């Protein structure tokens, strides 16, 4: 293993992580809920009375974040290398997988580990391992 020292951004990563933690903290202390993005988004597809507006508000907050960030600084442009077929396959897998697995990087990874939930610790281990393995196969075995 070689560490990419030029790409490594420890300060920004830690600061951004603290801000993400603050969002999850406010959400559970004020709204009494887990800031799990796949669950919040997925719940919109099964609308129930009184259960839609807060979900939509959270999602709109996420989508609006670049706009607000842009008021203070230039938003870094994301580098999306995946092509159309990869994006479609990846999206389907993430959609189905997060719903069956009851969570993603936010719900299991951030909130679940913070709660020391055994389910979330296992889920995070599994999706991290699957992510490592997938990138290894794509970049080093198939050689894209």
């Amino acid at each position, binding site marked *: 293993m070689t560490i990419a020292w030029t790409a490594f951004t420890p300060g920004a990563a830690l600061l951004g992580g603290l801000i993400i933690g603050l969002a999850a903290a406010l959400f559970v202390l004020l709204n009494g809920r887990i800031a799990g993005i796949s669950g919040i*988004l*997925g719940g919109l597809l099964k609308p129930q009375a009184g259960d839609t507006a807060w979900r939509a508000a959270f999602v709109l907050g996420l989508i609006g974040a670049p706009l607000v960030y842009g008021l203070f600084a230039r938003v870094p442009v*994301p580098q999306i290398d995946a092509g159309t077929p990869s*994006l479609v396959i990846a999206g389907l897998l993430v959609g189905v997988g997060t*719903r069956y697995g*009851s969570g993603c990087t936010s719900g299991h990874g951030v909130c679940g*580990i913070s709660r020391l939930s055994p*389910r979330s610790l296992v889920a995070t281990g599994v999706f991290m391992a699957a992510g*490592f393995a997938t990138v290894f196969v794509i970049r080093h075995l198939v050689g894209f």
Partner: protein
Amino acid sequence: MNIIFSGLAGLIFGLGLIVSGMADPAKVLGFLDLAGAWDPSLALVMAGAIAVGSLAFYFAGRRQHSWLGLVMKLPSARQIDRRLLLGSALFGIGWGVAGFCPGPALVALGLGELKALLFVAAMLAGMGLFEVLERRRS
């Protein structure tokens, strides 16, 4: 009131993703590529978020109601079953293919990235497929 704070929480979450660099799939894939030039940044994002989160969930777990007077809705499921394992594995594969998980994809969508729109549309289709299969099961 809770709807306003819900939007605010989503907004702060999104700002954190941008500041941390995690709204960029290339940076996420740099973390997932252990055998290449490895970028450990994502681990520090998790560490920072969990440090704050642990404190918050410690206090939240001792309360019946939130500061706004809402019932605490913390997950109570405990069983580690096939759904959890297989679902998480599928999610991890999809995460590794494009470098997007749900939050960063929504932030990139807000940047007007067409590729993010494509990913989010497919993700919603996958979530819709789950709902259909669940309804058929019951």
